[in-house]
């Protein structure tokens, strides 16, 4: 039939410019999406260890700050905050020595505030959930009568990761000692 032949001879891409163009653009889009997806998947990502390190440092600094802040006007509140900032041996110490310590502070009527000058982790074990921290601090003690005294303080602590964040399991002043006998304790 002439109608059939005529129809077949004009069938083909030139007769359907819209279909051709859209199919070509689609093919380009597929290649582009595939490349972009591969580029995204192979890009380096911040590691979980880096996140743990940043969390431990931030929460450790806050805990050390808490432990160096106490006002005789709000001793109970202050010690409660110490409990929340600690775990393990340190937490037990706080919990058991609480009432005697609170009385001492109230009698002395002193206010202690602290400022962190700088802090850094010295060790980090992400799998075990432990870290060590050193903090350079400035402590200001204001007694009931008398002028405020400010001094620098070097402190080191051990952090343990708990379900509610990184907490201090020990905290102490770094002692000054003979330089010749000092080894790097990290």
């Amino acid at each position, binding site marked *: 039939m002439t109608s059939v032949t005529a129809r077949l001879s004009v069938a083909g891409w030139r007769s359907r410019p819209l279909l051709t163009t859209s199919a070509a653009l689609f093919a380009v889009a597929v290649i582009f999406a595939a490349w972009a997806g591969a*580029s*995204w998947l192979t890009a380096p990502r911040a590691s979980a260890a880096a996140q743990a390190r940043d969390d431990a440092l931030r929460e450790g600094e806050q805990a050390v700050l808490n432990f160096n802040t106490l006002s005789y006007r709000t001793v109970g509140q202050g010690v409660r905050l110490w409990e929340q900032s600690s775990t393990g041996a340190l937490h037990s110490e706080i919990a058991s020595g609480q009432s005697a310590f609170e009385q001492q502070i109230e009698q002395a009527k002193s206010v202690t505030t602290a400022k962190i000058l700088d802090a850094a982790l010295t060790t980090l074990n992400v799998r075990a959930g432990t870290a060590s921290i050193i903090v350079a601090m400035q402590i200001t003690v204001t007694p009931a009568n008398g002028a405020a005294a400010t001094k620098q303080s070097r402190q080191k602590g051990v952090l343990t990761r708990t379900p509610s964040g990184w907490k201090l399991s020990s905290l102490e002043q770094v002692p000054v000692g003979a330089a010749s006998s000092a080894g790097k304790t990290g």
Partner: protein
Amino acid sequence: MPIGPSYRPIAEPESAAVPTITEEVVTESPAAVPSPRPRWRRMLPVVFGAATVVLGALGGWAAVQGHDLRANAASANDALVNASATRTVTRDVTSAVNTIFSYSYADTARTRTAAQRLLTGPAIRQYNQLFALVQQQAPKEKLVVTTRVTNVGVELLTGGSARLLIFANQEDSRAGTSQATYGGAMFAVTAVNEHGRWLIESIDTFTGSS
């Protein structure tokens, strides 16, 4: 846009004259030749277009995310995450601090010379200014100063620069006497990596003027 011999521009006069023939031809054509445009193939350009837009948007989003991740990774903080790099910078800076802050009245020049290799940038100038005083005073008092780092924490570590917090003990003694004083120091050090060695660029003693 009918094409080919099947169209009939002026059908009425002819159909009125020969109605039966027209109807027969029209009836036959669907059976002889299939419709040129089934519904699903008419939709193809629209489907391709929609899919192109969706893939283009997803691809664009992924490309931007990938670029951002790479840009952040270049300046990422490797402190404690890259254990060996952390050990290297800790070792280099500890050794440098112990060296530049330890001297003996008998040979202050030795410390000064060693310090030139361990410091860089503004730190060299500042150190030399301070050390000029040391070179004057130390022989008079027969001063021997020993500094040892006790605690080091790396806060920031990238390929080229690092910041460390340092606690150190300092022992000052006078030769020929048993007098000695001990002090504890705390300061932050900024170091830069030059040709694989970490050099001290600045020291911050937290007094507001380093």
